[in-house]
């Protein structure tokens, strides 16, 4: 080993970094920025909002425990809202978003052993779980000297046994639909710019719009295949019987799916078209493939942190929430959750907003991408 050669290699790397200030900046700034964002989001996460509704089926006999529950709620700072007098009106209140948890006190409450029903929306099991814990605490405090109560959980959407994967799946589908298409298009278009093929292409009578739409169609096709397979795997469940030494196993995650896979596909397709064109646009600002990869911490990571993959957007600090609402990923994930978990159709207000937003973003990036493909590259 020659120390001189080793030193020469190390020095060359340092020289390359000096010429590529952006990589150097990213090496230092990106981890700190991401950590800062993460710290801000986690530390300033809003406590989950729980509006409690109490439905009593037992009439005047339930009055003491109802009063005790009310007192416990007030003491714990949990607002109690009026949700009517039967289980159906309680469900309606949860569905309409007027209450987060409804306690249904049974008619046989005085009998000593009774089952209390808790109704939640079921769209975000993590949020529901936190709320159930709060409400279970209230019930425990209210029923210290009363009958022994068991709790039964019911959800409007999905199932009470939904696990973290059920809410994660739509988020991850949205994330991958954006991420892979973005990286692949970025590198591919950068190679067009640096490899001389774009120059050659522009020496033909091709229109910029033809290039942008052609790219969207080409990568859109593969995004389509990718998303179709992901959806199939996430939503499907196929039992493969025992084959020889290989034991029987399950293919697919069998995620509970309430809505139309086609509508889910529309959401993800619009997201992918936006990603393709954002990548074409940003490839102007990269000179090497390395610099395309450097867009990941800038473009992808903030969207993953703020878009609702890990935390619901509602729980983010207010200023960050405003930023999150401008990110395509937020609307992709929100739309996918609406379709897959809530079974939302095109008449659903929030889904309409999500789809309109994603379509607008796609159009914006198509225009921006087209503007970067100029015959004069200089």
């Amino acid at each position, binding site marked *: 080993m020659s120390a001189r050669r080793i030193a020469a290699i190390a020095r060359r790397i340092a020289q390359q970094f000096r010429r590529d200030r952006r990589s150097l900046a990213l090496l230092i700034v990106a981890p700190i920025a991401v950590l800062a964002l993460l710290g801000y989001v986690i530390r300033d996460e809003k406590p989950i909002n729980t509006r409690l509704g109490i439905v009593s089926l037992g009439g005047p006999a339930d009055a003491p425990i109802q009063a005790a529950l009310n007192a416990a709620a007030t003491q714990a700072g949990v607002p109690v809202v009026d949700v009517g007098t039967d289980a159906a009106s309680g469900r309606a209140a949860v569905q309409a978003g007027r209450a987060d948890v409804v306690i249904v006190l049974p008619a046989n409450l005085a009998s000593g052993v009774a089952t209390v029903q808790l109704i939640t929306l079921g769209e975000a099991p993590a949020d529901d779980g936190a709320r159930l814990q709060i409400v279970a605490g209230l019930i425990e405090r209210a029923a210290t000297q009363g009958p022994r109560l068991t709790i039964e959980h019911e959800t409007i959407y999905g199932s009470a046994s939904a696990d973290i994967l059920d809410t994660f799946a739509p988020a991850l589908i949205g994330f991958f639909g954006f991420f892979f298409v973005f990286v692949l298009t970025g590198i591919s278009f950068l190679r067009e710019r640096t*490899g*001389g*093929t774009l*120059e*050659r*292409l*522009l*020496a*033909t*009578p*091709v*229109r910029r*719009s033809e290039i942008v739409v052609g790219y969207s169609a080409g990568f859109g096709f593969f995004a389509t295949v990718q998303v179709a397979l992901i959806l199939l795997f996430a939503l499907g469940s196929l039992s493969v019987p025992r084959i020889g030494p290989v034991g029987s196993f399950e293919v697919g995650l069998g995620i509970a799916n309430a809505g139309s896979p086609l509508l889910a596909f529309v959401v993800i397709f619009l997201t992918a078209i936006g990603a393709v064109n954002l990548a074409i646009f940003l490839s102007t600002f990269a000179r090497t493939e390395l610099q395309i990869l450097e867009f990941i911490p800038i473009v992808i990571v903030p969207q993953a942190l703020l878009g609702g993959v890990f935390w619901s957007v509602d729980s983010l600090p207010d200023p960050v929430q405003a930023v999150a609402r401008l990110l395509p990923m937020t609307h992709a994930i929100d739309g996918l959750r609406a379709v897959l978990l809530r079974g939302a159709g095109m008449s659903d207000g929030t889904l309409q907003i999500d789809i309109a937003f994603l379509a607008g973003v796609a159009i914006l990036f198509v225009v921006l991408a087209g503007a970067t493909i100029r*015959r*004069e*590259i*200089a």
Partner: protein
Amino acid sequence: MGTGGPAGPATEPAGPAIETHGLRKVFGAIAAVDGIDISFPAGRIYGLLGPNGSGKTTLIRLMAGLAVATSGSVTVLGTRMPSRPLLARIGYMTQSDGLYSELSVWENLSFFAAMSGQPDVTAMAEILDVVELGDRRGRPILQLSGGMRRRLSLACALVHRPTVVFLDEPTVGVDPVLRYHLWDHFRRLATAGTTLVVSSHVMDEGDRCDELVLIRSGRVLAMGNGAEIRRQAGTADLESAFLKLSGVPTRGDSQ
């Protein structure tokens, strides 16, 4: 967006195929092309000779409509450049190969033929034979030698049978035998009425052109055929003529 077809060949303007007036292109403080006036009648081969960085590529890109002039004008086939529809009648071979390395020879060729609006299989097969790649159709670019890539790049520029052709250093890395064949083909194209502009920094290719433009620092140093330029400089070969006209003292002078 309109139909955007190329101008019909029937109404060929009588004027020169390529004409520039006071053409200038400035990048920051550097004038890559610094006031060039040329007039090229159709059906001939024009050689742009000059050292690396003399402005040849910028001049070609201006003429091919890939760059916008800072001042002055370029007219090709009677149309002021840049003009997108006219590009259907222009062939441009870039200095870098500009090929898709995962695709095969045939796939690259048919892609660029489709882009220029004339995916004619006969023309594709013909031009592949001219560049002697007919037996390598299915070969991916990654497996081609540098010279083969250069030849395919040339084929891609000629596949749509353009009326005006710009070739930026087409014979770099091409062996002498094939180079001879290629110049033969250029001559046939010119005889058939095609106008060719070929840039090179290899002076010995100059004598194959009908007219030479010697360029240095974005300006025309001399114009004329090889014999005229040698006579003007009073030298025996183009290499020395170029050096003498550039003001560089040469051994050829003192001997």
